[in-house]
């Protein structure tokens, strides 16, 4: 019951702020709405019992990505610049397409997704468990992607620095 109510509250937050984030005229507001969405998503993870994921989501998104966004906004936003709204035609077209996409995907998913829930004991994921899985080399263990993504991160850092620095 509580789970239900919490879910619907989060769902409402996500839906409303998602739409607001992509319709709001002012960019700083959009960013804020996005933050709400991301936090609410983190809430969903918590609701689903993935506390670790909740933490990561909050830390990375709210802590990292959002900061980047804010900096970028402040860097590129010239005070006093007119906020021009988008062309109506483009919004209508995009809106119709998005709605059609939702309808289509919803139709397919609703009628085809496996609805038989597998209930297992809602056991908490322990850090040991996570660490073990993360650094294992067997099936369903994730050391290799962990290493691989480190390279990606390094490359992205180098790349971003190269682009962003002055020389």
């Amino acid at each position, binding site marked *: *019951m509580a*789970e*239900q109510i919490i*879910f*619907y509250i989060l*769902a409402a937050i*996500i839906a409303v702020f*998602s*739409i607001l*984030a*992509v*319709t709001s005229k002012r*960019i700083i507001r*959009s*960013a804020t709405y*996005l933050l709400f*969405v*991301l936090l609410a*998503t983190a809430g*969903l993870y918590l609701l*689903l019992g*993935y506390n670790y*994921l909740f933490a990561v*989501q909050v830390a990375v*998104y709210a802590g*990292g990505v959002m900061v*980047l*966004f804010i900096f*970028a906004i402040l*860097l*590129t936003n010239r005070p006093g610049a007119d906020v021009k709204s*988008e062309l109506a035609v*483009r*919004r209508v077209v*995009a809106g119709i*397409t*998005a*709605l059609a*996409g*939702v309808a289509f*995907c919803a139709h397919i*998913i*609703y009628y085809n*997704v496996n*609805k*038989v*829930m*597998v209930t*297992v004991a809602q056991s908490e*994921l322990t850090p040991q468990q996570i660490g073990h899985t*993360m650094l294992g080399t067997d099936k*369903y263990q994730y050391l290799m*992607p962990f290493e691989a*993504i480190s390279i*990606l*991160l390094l490359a*992205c850092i180098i790349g*971003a620095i190269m*682009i*962003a620095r002055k020389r």
Partner: protein
Amino acid sequence: MELITNFLSGSVQIEAYLGLSLIMFFAGIYGFLSRKSLLMILISIELMLNAADINFVVFNRYLYPGHLEGFYFTLFTIAIAACETAVAIAIIINIYRNLNSVEVGNLDEMKE
């Protein structure tokens, strides 16, 4: 009231999660297609990635709880999304340096 309680009884249906992620995903798409500022487009992309993450997690939890595949996928995706954002923002700032604007409509020197 009874209707509501009936509705709320039991656990949340998987369709609800999926519907939510769909809304988020297509809101992102809408934003990508309609926004003027590069940063706003980037915000829309975050929404899209996030929607996919929700899917993974929900599928993992509801349908295939035996392993943590969806969980880890989401974990890594969050990292990747961060990378993307970082690089994209670097590039957007570079654009701003070059064009003194972050409007996507100005990116049309090359066409046809």
